[in-house]
């Protein structure tokens, strides 16, 4: 089972998300993450879908997605030619004593502290999966209270845009 990242242009109206997610569940495809947002054209949204599977499954997913009337374009974003990013917010337990130590770790990762109270901090970090996993590992000893992740979002490197793909 390999991980594949698909970038999908869809019509920006209600019901599209349920059509896409419904397709995955009813055909038994596994979604690792799905993130969606509006594009430079307000009528079009773009989804980044991370799936696990083999070549056959990904081929099927692309074809089945293309069959949906609301889907405008599907491309696969390969790791070597794409930028993968994810945003994470972590609420980590800190005593007053530990606070400076935690902030130091966050600085190494070029993360930001976005909320402080006496017993905890909220840390914001953007990066690829390995960077995010590394920060989580570093913070675990202090006690992670909550984590929220946006899921992967991605863009192809270089000048070419999704609409120029066949």
């Amino acid at each position, binding site marked *: 089972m390999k991980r594949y990242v698909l970038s999908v242009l*869809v*019509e920006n109206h209600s*019901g599209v998300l*349920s*059509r896409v997610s*419904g397709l995955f569940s*009813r055909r038994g495809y596994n979604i690792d993450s799905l993130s969606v947002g509006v594009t430079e054209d307000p009528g079009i949204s773009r989804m980044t879908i991370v799936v696990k599977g083999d070549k*056959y499954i990904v*081929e*099927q997913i692309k*074809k*089945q997605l*293309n*069959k*949906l*009337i*609301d*889907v*405008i374009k599907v491309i696969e974003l390969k790791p070597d030619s794409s930028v993968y990013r994810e945003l994470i917010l972590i609420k980590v337990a800190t005593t007053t004593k530990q606070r400076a130590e935690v902030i130091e770790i966050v600085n190494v990762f070029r993360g930001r502290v976005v909320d402080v109270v006496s017993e905890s901090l909220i840390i914001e970090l953007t990066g690829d999966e390995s960077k995010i996993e590394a920060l989580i590992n570093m913070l675990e000893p202090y006690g992670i209270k909550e984590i929220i992740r946006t899921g992967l979002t991605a863009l192809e490197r270089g000048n070419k845009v999704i609409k120029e793909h066949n």
Partner: protein
Amino acid sequence: MKATDAIVECLKKESVNLVFGYPGAAIMPLYDALRRSDIEHILVRQEQAAAHCASGYARTSGKVGVCIATSGPGATNLITGIATAYMDSIPLVAITGQVKSTLIGRDVFQEVDITGATEPFVKHSYLIKNSKDIPRIIKEAFHIAKTGRPGPVLIDIPSDILVEDIDFYYDEEVNIRGYKPTFVGHVGQVKRAFKRLEKSKKPVICIGGGIITANAEKELADFVEKAKIPVVCTLMGLGGIDHSSPYYIGMIGSHGHNYANRAVAEADVIVFIGARLGDRATGENKLFKNNPDIIHIDIDPAEIGKNLGTSIPIVGDAKNVLNQLLELVRPLKTEDWIDYLTNLKRNHKKASEDNDYVNPKYAIELLSDMLDDNAILVGDVGQNQIWVALNYKVTSERKFFISGGLGTMGYSLPAAIGSAIADKKRQVVAVMGDGGFQMSLQELATIKQNKLKVIILLFNNEGLGMVREMQYRTYKSEYAVDLSSNPDFIKLAEAYGIQGKIVKNNEGLKEAFDEAINSKGTFLIECMVNPKESTL
């Protein structure tokens, strides 16, 4: 203009002159506009039948079938009909009423999320939120339903939107950026395909429903004759080639002709055209023992490679691709191969006689000899489906309809009604078992009301024969399902003003068929069939 009048206008622009439906509160405004229009409305007796009727109508007329139902239970009753059409790629537009847009999501009376419920088995669906979108959406819906790989499209319209006023417009062109079907085959691929065929010693063409959908029967016959390639078909492909053609072998599949299965098992190249290689057709791919090269022609790219690895994929409309192949065609050296297959077919044993009951296989053979050259036969589901599929000869201009993909019992009677309404000149026959008949027999009232003529051939074996057979084979128990408390079907038909006759053995069949064929109105022939009669 009232939104409902706009809907009627749009339907007319799409050359709809007849719809099937069943009214209710939420859809009432549309019914009022329909009443004032010259669009004919056929009232069914349950909404599922409206979708099946529209399916039979679409398959007969080549137009998009339209069915209308109200919100809630009206809409949910359509579901099986919509799913049936989806699996067999039949173009339908289903219009449902919805509760007021301001009340959606509050679980009000007769509210159901029908766009959500039908999502897995519609080609597309719309919940209209703004009345000014109505003309655009209806235009798109018809375009989507009938182009590419056809299928059902659902339009759900809240009742408050139905009563709004809108400015009418109707675009000539449709432009949906996410929907651009490929109609013409890739030239290079078509060349590769024929090159591969030229090297083949044992080629077979396997056709599915796509040949019929694309109206490619003539092109197929041309190609087959010029290339000299034997043809087998799937259940949905029956009728795609004239059964009297010397190149036609038979139907493949788990319930297919064994000689047709032999043909694909021994082939070195198989060309699938408009077939999705469903499990019932390919025996979960166990049929292809010889590891043949697969050339797959289909308008739906997602079908290529889904169930079977493909050597040469060609995306396109069957008619276009066959025309492209016709430009390259040269006769192949297949005489020995065809002789071998036709011998297998010739030596296949015929239906046996049985004096205590009607032999359904013989009955279908006889009916096949007696019907017109352009008769329409609609089959149901169960043993009777296979009896028909294996023994009916779809020759000349005949048409053959069946619920192939979903296997919906109760399909044949309403679909035959739709056919009879679409073409009043052709003989229309509905074949079914006693199980399937009782799933749709309320539609006898639709027949009565519209004075239709349908020949109903009912095989009564007092049970669900195929279920019984499976039970016997799997669990060694014979009677988990027993329908022996059937009503008196002849009397029941009589209650609807329909003539009928019981036939107890093969001897009475010819006379009964004659009587049914010559009768002015609908005629029920109830054949008593041995409960232990086998499917194959």
